[in-house]
């Protein structure tokens, strides 16, 4: 259904446009210099900052009431855990440099506590994993912790370059990961364990083996003098906030974009408030599920690809633990499970005796939880936690439930590549269409996560600059 702005909105837009004309004579003298960026996550903000450095007028529009997108620090909780982007890799050059330039201090994060296991309903101390009767792996595989099984892909990773995951000669690997792993000799029990907490697909049959090769290859390739991961001392969201504050024009918050029309001389974005914003080009820097809600002039083939990309499902329950209930029994404090709880990451809150505990559930296991309301979802997770570690009950409090799939402006945590999508889909979703350009982690070539967002902003800014030169 086409969106029709209200009469009041049209009037407001007309007034705003006329004042903009009075206030900025450059609109007349320097046509082709205004860019509207939709989305104030890292990708949109990075593109905006680059374009401003190059003399463009940039207007950033954000649907949420905050900047940062899928970088979201839970500032209301002790320890300020990360509800979104949480790891800055040692080779995240753009992230590290931007933080340095904007005086956002980074640190090596406090280490997560050691992880024990809960497999097939049995709890297993980490030192007993290799010999436990509950370890389902065959003899040659038993000593590998379940979370490290997928890393065995790097023993024979065919991706020898950053771009290789698109190469036609390697497309045999663009197959369902469960079948591919079996063909490579992974035992069924290993495949089942990998599937239990696969961060790169909602289930292995709908995950491309190529995507897993790509991830593992990236993990294996670090550069730079420091190998330790980093985080912002005061929370990762301080980085996008600092980027936004550096822009000449304040980010427009709480303004979902309904449609972007292509005009003879540029683009016109219509906001949910009814206002319109005209520019010479638009960068769409938002996740694909959010992009799908905007009416766009795109070729049908590109729309079809955009409709076909899955996003990863994550449910997180962020808790605070007052006492280390795990110590008396010799547990480490974190757990890797093949059940409802997925993985439990616990780490000390610096400068206190308390701990942040994040229960991190991946993939299709999120479906029944996402069908519940917040209270029922939280209760279901807590009941499973009390069953696993009854001692947690009296010393653990809930701080925040995070469900990216249920967020209409995210639709999931990151883009996934299903079997058959490695070759063409990635190129198609980021192809510029007239004056519409695309950014976001899903469009990046070399990286994933926060660095991918930054990388994509660079590329989109360059494309705009070429187009408007």
């Amino acid at each position, binding site marked *: 259904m086409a969106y029709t702005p209200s009469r009041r909105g049209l009037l407001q837009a007309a007034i705003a446009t006329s004042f903009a004309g009075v206030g900025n004579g*450059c609109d007349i*003298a320097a046509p082709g210099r205004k860019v509207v960026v939709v989305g104030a996550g890292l990708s949109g903000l990075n593109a905006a900052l680059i374009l401003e450095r190059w003399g463009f007028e940039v207007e950033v529009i954000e649907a949420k009431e905050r900047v940062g997108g899928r970088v979201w620090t839970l500032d209301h909780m002790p320890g300020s855990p990360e509800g979104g982007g949480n790891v800055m890799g040692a080779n995240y050059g753009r992230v590290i440099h*931007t933080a340095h330039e904007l005086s956002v201090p980074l640190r090596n994060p406090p280490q997560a506590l050691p992880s024990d296991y809960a497999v097939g309903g049995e709890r297993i101390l980490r030192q007993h994993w290799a010999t436990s009767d509950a370890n389902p792996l065959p003899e040659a595989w038993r000593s590998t912790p379940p979370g490290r099984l997928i890393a065995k892909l790097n023993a024979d990773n065919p991706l*020898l370059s950053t*771009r290789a995951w698109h190469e036609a000669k390697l497309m045999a690997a663009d197959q369902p990961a469960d079948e591919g792993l079996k063909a490579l000799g992974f035992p069924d029990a290993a495949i089942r364990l990998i599937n239990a907490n696969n961060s790169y697909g909602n289930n292995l049959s709908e995950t491309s083996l190529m995507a897993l090769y790509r991830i593992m290859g990236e993990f294996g*390739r670090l*550069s730079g003098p420091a190998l330790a991961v980093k985080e912002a001392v005061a929370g990762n969201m301080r980085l996008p906030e600092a980027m936004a504050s550096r822009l000449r024009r304040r980010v427009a918050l709480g303004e979902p974009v309904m449609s972007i029309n292509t005009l003879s001389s540029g683009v016109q974005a219509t906001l949910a408030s009814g206002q319109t914003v005209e520019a010479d080009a638009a960068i769409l820097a938002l996740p694909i599920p959010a992009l799908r809600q905007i009416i766009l002039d795109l070729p049908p083939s590109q729309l079809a690809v955009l409709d076909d990309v899955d996003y990863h499902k994550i449910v997180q329950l962020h808790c605070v633990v007052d006492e280390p209930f795990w110590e008396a029994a010799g547990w480490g404090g974190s757990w890797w499970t093949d059940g409802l709880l997925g993985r439990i990451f616990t780490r000390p809150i610096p400068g206190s005796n308390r701990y942040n505990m994040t229960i991190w559930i991946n993939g299709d296991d999120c479906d029944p939880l996402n069908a519940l309301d917040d209270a029922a979802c939280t209760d279901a997770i807590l009941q499973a936690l009390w069953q696993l570690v009854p001692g947690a009950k009296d010393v653990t409090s809930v701080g925040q439930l995070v469900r990216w799939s249920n967020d209409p402006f995210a639709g999931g945590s990151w883009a996934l590549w299903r079997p058959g999508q490695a070759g063409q889909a990635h190129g198609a979703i980021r192809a510029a269409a007239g004056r519409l350009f695309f950014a976001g982690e899903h469009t990046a070539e070399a990286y994933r996560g926060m660095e991918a967002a930054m990388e994509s902003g660079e590329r989109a800014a360059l494309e705009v600059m070429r187009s*408007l*030169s």
Partner: protein
Amino acid sequence: MIPGRQTRCWLAMSACLLAAATRAAPPSGEQLYDIACLSCHSLGDAADHRVGPPLGGLLNRKAAMVKDYRYSEALSASGWSWTLPTLLAWLSDPDTAIPNNAMNYVNPLTAGETQRLGEWLLQQP
């Protein structure tokens, strides 16, 4: 001092002319460095917070020779020196130029832009 109306008009016109002039030109070497290199490489001669080695004084410098920087074995063993042909080969496709290098990077520049960037980089002290 608050500028008078005439001065403000002149400033506005200058800004507009500058913008229009910039608009007509393709990205300069410096702008291409800004977008393609700056986040990971300074132009000085000493390693800083950035994850890549500095690029100052690059012309005829042997590859993998910046003190205290941890290079890949592949680049260290390459025997390369940085001249326009080697730099263009590296920038165009680092993985093909020296496989198993540590620079996880896909060059978004056109061949012409890469040439302009390479020429500019080699002039930096």
